[in-house]
């Protein structure tokens, strides 16, 4: 049984995916989608599900996370549907309701901890030094005050909630 949810359209629009209504279901996107070639993900179908407000089906689906954001579909869509923006909007909604892969949580935690998506490694630090580069790159990694600014931004935008 499908459970259409009329509030979902408003939620999608708020998350930046309002133009999903432009989609007329031609399937050009799916035809060129490299992920659809390898998986059960069908981007045309996802757009339809979003139009119909099938929220539970979308936020619980693995397929929502099988888009590589390659923009092939966006380039070819005859209706200029900003498909990647819609995928991002749907993912934002899914994450805000607690649907997140552990591997993604780890990436988010790295950003909160280091200000970067990956950590510093001894091997790379040694290589940097050897080449005459500063051992620690001159980013937030090298300035605690700048990192504290970033932390405030993460907090003010609710990012901390998703890394807990």
């Amino acid at each position, binding site marked *: 049984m499908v459970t259409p949810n009329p509030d979902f359209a408003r939620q999608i629009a708020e998350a930046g995916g309002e133009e999903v209504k432009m989609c007329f279901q031609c399937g050009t996107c799916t035809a060129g989608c490299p992920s659809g070639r390898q998986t059960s993900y069908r981007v045309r179908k996802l757009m339809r599900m979003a139009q119909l407000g099938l929220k539970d089906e979308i936020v619980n689906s693995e397929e929502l996370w099988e888009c*590589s954001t390659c923009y*092939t579909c966006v*380039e070819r869509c005859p209706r200029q549907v900003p498909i990647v923006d819609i995928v*991002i909007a749907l993912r934002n909604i899914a*994450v805000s309701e607690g649907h997140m892969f552990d591997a993604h949580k780890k990436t988010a935690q790295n950003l909160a901890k280091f200000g970067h998506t990956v950590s510093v490694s001894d091997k*790379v630090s040694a290589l940097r030094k050897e*080449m005459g580069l500063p051992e620690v790159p001159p*980013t937030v990694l090298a300035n605690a005050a700048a990192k504290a600014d*970033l932390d405030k931004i993460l907090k003010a935008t609710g990012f901390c909630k998703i890394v807990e």
Partner: protein
Amino acid sequence: MAKYAFFLGCIAPLRYPGIEKSTREVCKALDIELVDLKDASCCPAPGVIRAFNKKTWLAAAARNLALAEKAGLPIVTICNGCYGSLFDAAHELKENPALLKEVNGILAQVGMEYKGTTVVRHFAEVLYNEVGVDKIKAKITNPLSYKVAAFYGCHFLKPSGIKNVDDPENPHILDDLIEATGAKSMPRQNKTLCCGAGGGLKAAFGDVAKKFTQTNLENMKASGAQYIIDVCPFCHLQFDGVQKELGYSIPVLHLSQLMGLAMGMNAKDLALSAHVTPVTL
């Protein structure tokens, strides 16, 4: 002398420092002055962080853009992910004053403001558009004879409606830059196919990502390419990291490393030991 704020990102400085080093050297040789964008953070990554919380992504990107604005410099990136995030964020903030106002409300909490003026450039596109193939040719001291596969990746060219870097379905600027070094860019099937790593696919569905990469590797191998030349440390990480397991061994170089070699840079400064797929020059 052209001057840019050098945005490092994450993967280049923290996984492939040879990409950072060679970019610095190549820019020096081409009279491009790079000023470190001090205190910058992750761009933040467009396929993961933006997918988790778009507000966070936009505000943190705006912080990076504001740092460059304060320095009065355009940003140059060496990564398609950073280019994607910073370019797209700058574009959105320019087009949408209400959004800019909202983001500035957040930046005000750390005593910053973004006026919306930062220009975001990609290293490869700067080489092509600002330096030009002829000037690059004149700086080549060690002409190369490799046959290579040019790998553009996705966010360098797309969405093309706002980026306008090259034809997204049939691009040529990376091929032209490669050929300026003497190397030959081999034609191949499906040249603009994604590496598979983006959008959080590498982390959550590594096997699916690898299938994208394998299709690319198969096409590259069939083309006779001896090296893969990318313009993105994240594509670089994907191609470099998965080949062994998939049974391929085509060395991977970032455009900056290829240019560095052709301009006579010391191989030691390419940090090739950071590469998983062995690089023999």
